[in-house]
């Protein structure tokens, strides 16, 4: 284990995100200014997928919050949120957004694989392309389980399994085709050409295994679909691809009592 107790991939991802943070400022400004909760690259409204339920009065932790726009949506709806992210530059953007919007909540600089917060202190843990893809699944799911109270909920969004089988590269992104480019068995840790970061993607059976082995019951899997009327351009897939196959998926699990 390297210094600070960080895993090797956490250090690499921290370094990568410190250089990418500036590119994510415009997105942070757009998302913080947004009223509606909408998930993922496809921006599917929460009203449609209903992953969260009522959040008012809940203690919420966002694992790998980046610029903390998801936290901002939940804070405005009455949740007591805490954002956790390892990258100082991303948290700096989050703090500036907090000041601009007059919406303060705690931000903790840490990896979601080792969170310096007490056991059983949250009702909801959420991650949208945060810990959910940048952390080792067994490590961050274990942390989410530890941080949640019995009966607490975990909601996270990841790239679709079908997308990870067909995506030529993610940085620079090339749109997925139909050819299966890599095996499903053994899928877990991904490294890309000319990209120092490490991301993690599991197949369906492995997600169920990881969640149940850390004390969760799987409640819901929603595979986000391009609604069809959206002809928007995306880097990783075409609108037409995302009408046929799942480009993004959201899991909801409940911590057993």
């Amino acid at each position, binding site marked *: 284990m390297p210094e600070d107790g960080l895993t090797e991939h956490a250090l690499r991802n921290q370094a990568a995100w410190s250089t990418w943070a500036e590119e994510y400022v415009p997105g942070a400004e757009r998302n913080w200014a947004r009223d509606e909760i909408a998930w993922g690259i496809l921006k599917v409204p929460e009203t449609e997928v209903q992953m969260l339920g009522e959040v008012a009065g809940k203690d919420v932790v966002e694992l790998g919050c980046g610029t903390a726009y998801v936290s901002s949506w939940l804070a405005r709806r009455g949740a007591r949120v805490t954002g956790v992210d390892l990258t100082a530059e991303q948290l700096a953007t989050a703090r500036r957004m907090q000041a601009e919007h007059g919406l303060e909540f705690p931000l903790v600089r840490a990896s979601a694989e080792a969170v310096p917060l007490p056991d059983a202190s949250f009702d909801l843990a959420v991650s949208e392309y945060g810990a959910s893809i940048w952390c080792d699944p067994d490590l961050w799911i274990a942390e989410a389980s530890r941080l949640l109270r019995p009966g607490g909920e975990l909601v996270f969004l990841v790239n679709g399994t*079908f997308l990870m*089988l*067909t995506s030529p590269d993610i940085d620079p992104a090339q749109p997925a085709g*139909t*050819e*299966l480019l890599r*095996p*499903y*068995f053994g899928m877990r840790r991904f490294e890309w050409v000319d990209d120092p970061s490490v991301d993690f993607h599991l*197949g*369906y*059976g492995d997600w*169920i*295994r990881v969640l*149940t082995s850390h004390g969760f*019951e*799987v*409640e*819901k*899997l*929603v*595979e986000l*679909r391009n609604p069809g009327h959206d002809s928007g351009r995306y880097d990783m897939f075409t609108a037409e691809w995302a*009408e*046929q*196959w*799942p480009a993004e*998926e959201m899991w909801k699990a409940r911590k057993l009592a």
Partner: protein
Amino acid sequence: MTSPDATHNRANWDRRSDEYQERNAAFIGRKDEPRWGMWQLPDSELGILGDVAGKDVLELGCGAAQWSILLGGRGARCVGLDNSARQLEHARRLMAAAGVEFPLVHASADEVPLSDSSFDVVFCDHGAMTFADPYRTVPEASRLLRPDGLLAFSHSTPLAMCCFDDEAETMQRRLLTPYFGMHRFDELPDEPVEFNLPYGEWIRLFREHGLRVEALVEVRPPEGAETTYRTAAETEWARSWPMEEIWRCRKTG
């Protein structure tokens, strides 16, 4: 009321039963231990059913009842259900040869003439969960199970359904069929109608009917695994991508 798909599949399986048993019966009729699926991997390795002694077990789509004969020999009280009379004739023949007796029910799994809460295990191996509509069979399986009972079934993966080439009648390393909206497959007129759903829709359907997901085992055949169901090239495909999978769900409260 018998559904049109159940009627179609009954006639189809009555017609194909003899050839099916001739091709596969020896392969799936091994008596050493319970084995799943197209590559006959042991239940003891996959961890699906475990000990069945003393349990009431219903097989949904038992065919010639190779599974139920084996589980009966391990102390289960089995009932075999199949939609095809011809398949059940083969079952009676194998049961007589094995010197065992248990009830066989001639019915479609989407309308089972058996009582609520009467089984500890409801299962099938590429059976009724493939050849009948899950929107009807999942509620039926749930109704038939006692609290804490087990639903376990193998079937083709949704990924395999997307990669099956109807014209070449083989697997391709390419997505050919849309995933969203997957439900009923009837493209091949001489084949039975098959059913499958997107992963998220399976989970939603299980939970709607009081079934908690315990595991989804994606089957990977060992290198060079033998099968009477698939070509060597298809077995090779299944070494990289899951072609069959086994769901294990628990009836709640």
